[in-house]
């Protein structure tokens, strides 16, 4: 070996070493990059989930507010009384003749130029297949066929038991699908990949067919059609979104009215009934229980099998009411009612409480071994409700009289005429018991958790969180092998938990955003071993790199989050100022994170998200005012609307929309007298509710700006408190549309009406 060779070796070795080191460096850098992407992905997921659940909480809050209104509103005229009745009365149990009227489709003419699918009954498999194909080609089914189909569906559902029983003897395999939420592409994909339903191919769809996505109507049509065609092999479970009150908020009602302008109302009416008739669960081979949400430590399958599921019109909460009317009267008259009942969230005393169903209503909510269950009140029938409204009205009047020193009248029967609907209601008791109602809510709303035990599901506002021991006990009690449920979006479309005793299956891919998650369905053969198939019904996502996929989803999440931040600008400013005692206009980034969480209560990792929400400042401080201004600039043009008004409208827009939709009972999109009411509230929920009262009253009662008087603002106050002083923050009310009323009124502790 000459020195040349050894030098060569030496260089070679050095080069190899260099290359090794260079490669190691690049790998190190790359792995860090990927880790950061992974973190972003997780954070994005958390954002979407927390915003979604916060929205669900809002829904519950809204409903509580209306319940409270009913109890304490003192309508000053029959007109108002009727309005309240109408707002709350669910004409749930129309006589058969009425239902026939609503399902009356035979008189509806289908024009000759209609090129969509036509149905004739009894349905044949070809009809159902043709329907899928037609929808794939973006055709719309004519209202006449929609109503006809719904009518037949209802007839079929009525004869089904609460718990479907399916056997793998007859069909070799059973495919179970989870939430679809109006995403027709996913349904079409499932049928394409797995095959259409047939006597050999059974399907179970586990609820939440509607809302959010844009093709809920079409999905229902397809599912109902196949159910009629293959009644023994095709099964549907009710989900928490098969509920007309939930639909008001989450898009299904809107979709129906948009697609069926003339007959939408009829369609919604019969749908309301159809949803109540959907079975609650499906049992495969007596071993695998399929239901939408989950179970609780009190779940009683025998009770669930026996109850009249049709009575459970909606799982949205009501306050507990005593069955005995006289008892109510006495209690309220003794003014001890508030003491007995926990304070509702929107009253000043309870300001510190998070959105929690635990606080409201039920005095009978205590169960052994459970921190709290959802309070439940049996929903009333129309007549009963009308009676109770009047009773509370009279009581209120009596109390006012008492306070004013007038003699009080007792035991008067209501003299005012009943509304026609109330009178024509059936005579038999039409409410489910509290227990029945609770059982159904539990199976439609609950989520599994990792810890043992069973506790109230405060995130959703209904149902509970159930632990592995609850699952185990239930499976043992009824000799089952495992549970299949849906209700929660999972990144992979499915997830096992509780030692594989609970399977979550979610079939709406790209649920939050393109690329956010896969969808999945599960197949069961005679051995009942679950076999999962995943998919993502969007070709584009396959071609994107992980980075691009995450970026897209992340951008969407951040946009939603920025919107939410903007909607709370005033509160945020207040919170920031607290951290800026010296009034420098600056706060640290750590303070920013704390402040944001204390205002939004979303439980998000703000320090992780900060780089995406706040422009990096080198010295670890933030000029919060300009940050808030930047947020505002990103949102809508401000025009002449004050930003606080805009902000509150923004924050409450979905709530306001829901309210308007309730008020707009003929779904015409117009509200009475061409009043456009803009409401601005600066701070507290109490004021929001006062304003909401005003909005509701103003819109319907066509009352002038004097409406802003304390008389109405008080109505959301606890009974017995002096009116004027309860309004603790600023309330601004603007009535537009009528030039004479373009005034604003301010209320505050130190201000008088201006």
């Amino acid at each position, binding site marked *: 070996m000459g020195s040349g060779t050894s030098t060569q070796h030496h260089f070679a070795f050095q*080069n190899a070493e*260099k*290359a*090794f*080191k*260079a*490669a*190691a*460096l*690049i*790998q*190190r*850098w*790359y*792995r*860090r*990059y*990927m*880790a*950061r992407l*992974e*973190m972003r992905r*997780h*954070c994005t997921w*958390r954002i979407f989930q927390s915003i979604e659940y916060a929205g669900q909480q809002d829904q519950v809050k809204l409903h509580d507010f209306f319940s409270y209104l009913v109890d304490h509103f003192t309508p000053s005229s029959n007109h108002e009384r009727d309005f309240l009745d109408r707002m709350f009365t669910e004409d749930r149990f129309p006589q058969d003749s009425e239902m026939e009227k609503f399902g009356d489709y035979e008189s509806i003419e289908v024009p000759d130029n209609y090129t969509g699918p036509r149905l004739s009954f009894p349905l044949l498999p070809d009809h159902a297949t043709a329907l899928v194909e037609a929808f794939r080609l973006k055709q719309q089914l004519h209202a006449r066929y929609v109503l006809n189909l719904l009518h037949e569906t209802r007839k079929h559902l009525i004869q089904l038991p609460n718990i479907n029983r399916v056997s793998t003897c007859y069909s070799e395999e059973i495919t179970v699908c989870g939430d679809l939420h109006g995403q027709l592409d996913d349904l079409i994909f499932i049928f394409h990949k797995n095959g259409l339903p047939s006597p050999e191919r059974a399907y179970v769809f586990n609820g939440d067919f509607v809302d959010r996505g844009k093709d809920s109507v079409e999905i229902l049509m397809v599912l109902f059609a196949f159910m009629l065609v293959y009644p023994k092999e095709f099964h549907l479970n009710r989900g928490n979104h098969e509920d007309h009150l939930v639909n008001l908020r989450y898009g299904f009602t809107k979709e129906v009215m948009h697609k069926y302008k003339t007959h939408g109302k009829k369609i919604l009416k019969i749908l309301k009934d159809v949803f109540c008739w959907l079975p609650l669960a499906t049992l495969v081979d007596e071993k695998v229980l399929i239901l939408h949400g989950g179970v609780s430590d009190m779940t009683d399958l025998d009770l669930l099998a026996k109850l009249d599921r049709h009575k459970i019109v909606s799982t949205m909460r009501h306050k507990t009411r005593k069955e005995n009317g006289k008892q109510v009267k006495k209690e309220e008259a003794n003014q001890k009612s508030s003491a007995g009942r926990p304070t509702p969230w929107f009253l000043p005393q309870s300001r510190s409480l998070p959105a929690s169903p635990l606080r409201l209503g039920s005095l009978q909510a205590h169960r052994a071994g459970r921190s709290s269950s959802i309070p439940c009140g049996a929903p009333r029938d129309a007549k009963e409700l009308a009676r109770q409204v009047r009773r509370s009205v009279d009581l209120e009047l009596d109390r006012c009289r008492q306070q004013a020193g007038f003699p009080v009248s007792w035991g008067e029967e209501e003299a005012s005429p009943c509304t026609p609907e109330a009178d024509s209601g059936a005579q038999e008791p039409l409410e489910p018991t509290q227990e029945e109602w609770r059982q159904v809510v539990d199976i439609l709303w609950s989520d599994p958790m*990792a*810890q043992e035990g069973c506790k109230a599901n405060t995130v959703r506002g209904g149902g509970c969180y159930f632990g592995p021991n609850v699952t185990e006990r239930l499976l043992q009690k009824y000799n089952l092998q495992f549970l299949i449920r849906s209700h929660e979006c999972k990144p992979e479309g499915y997830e096992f938990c509780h030692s594989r005793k609970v399977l979550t299956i979610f079939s709406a891919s790209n649920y939050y955003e393109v690329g956010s998650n896969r969808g999945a369905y599960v197949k069961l053969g005679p051995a009942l071993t679950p076999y999962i198939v995943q998919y993502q019904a969007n070709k584009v996502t396959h071609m994107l*790199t*992980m*980075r691009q996929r995450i*970026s897209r989803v992340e951008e969407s999440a951040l946009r939603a989050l920025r919107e939410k931040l903007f909607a709370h600008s005033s509160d945020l400013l207040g919170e920031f100022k607290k951290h800026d005692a010296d009034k420098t206009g600056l706060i640290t980034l*750590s303070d920013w*994170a704390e402040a944001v969480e204390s205002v939004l209560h979303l439980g998000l*990792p*703000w*320090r*992780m998200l900060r*780089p995406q929400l706040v422009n*990096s400042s080198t010295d670890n401080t933030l000029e919060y005012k300009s940050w808030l201004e930047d947020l505002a600039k990103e949102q809508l043009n401000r025009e002449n609307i004050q930003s606080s008004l805009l902000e509150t409208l923004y924050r409450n827009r979905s709530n306001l929309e829901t309210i308007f939709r309730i008020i707009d009972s003929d779904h015409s999109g117009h509200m009475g007298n061409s009043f456009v009411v803009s409401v601005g509230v600066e701070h507290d929920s109490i004021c929001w509710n006062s304003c909401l009262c005003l909005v509701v009253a103003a819109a319907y009662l066509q009352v002038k700006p004097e409406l802003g008087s304390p008389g109405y603002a008080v109505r959301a106050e606890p009974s017995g408190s002096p009116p004027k002083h309860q309004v603790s923050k600023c309330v601004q009310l603007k009535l537009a549309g009528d030039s004479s009323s373009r005034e604003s009124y301010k209320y505050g502790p130190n201000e008088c009406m201006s």
Partner: protein
Amino acid sequence: MADDKEREGPDITVAEFHKKIKDAFEVFDHEANNTVDVREIGTIIRSLGCCPSEGELHDLIAEVEEEEPTGYIRFEKFLPVMTEVLLERRYRPIPEDILLRAFEVLDPSKRGFLLKEELIKYMTEEGEPFSQEEMEEMLSAAIDPESNSVHYKDYIAMMVIDES
């Protein structure tokens, strides 16, 4: 502790770090019981601004694991170790120019790019080799399909923009 002009004071910094570490940890604490799967620790550490090699990562994990490894890391053990890492500014990220030089080492003839096969060879055979999944993921973003090569200068620039 080192005297550092940038810090407001050691206690405040430590408190700051604690909050940051807690935030990152909680993202992966799926059961809300202050533990994370050991396989996620790497992601957590890296997202806190550190850039350890795989070997360094394994050493760190050994420090925070239980005596009898359970597959889970508890927050109580993780916090002090991670705080030290941050205070000592260990495992600093790689500056862009150093990264560029690393690519150039692998491209001695200074073409300005690496062929797909070359990249695969280096990344899967040298250093701390990539898994197949990692390799595929890198290729999907890095490789220009027409030339079947990675123009590393552009690639770095693109990745860096994405970071901020």
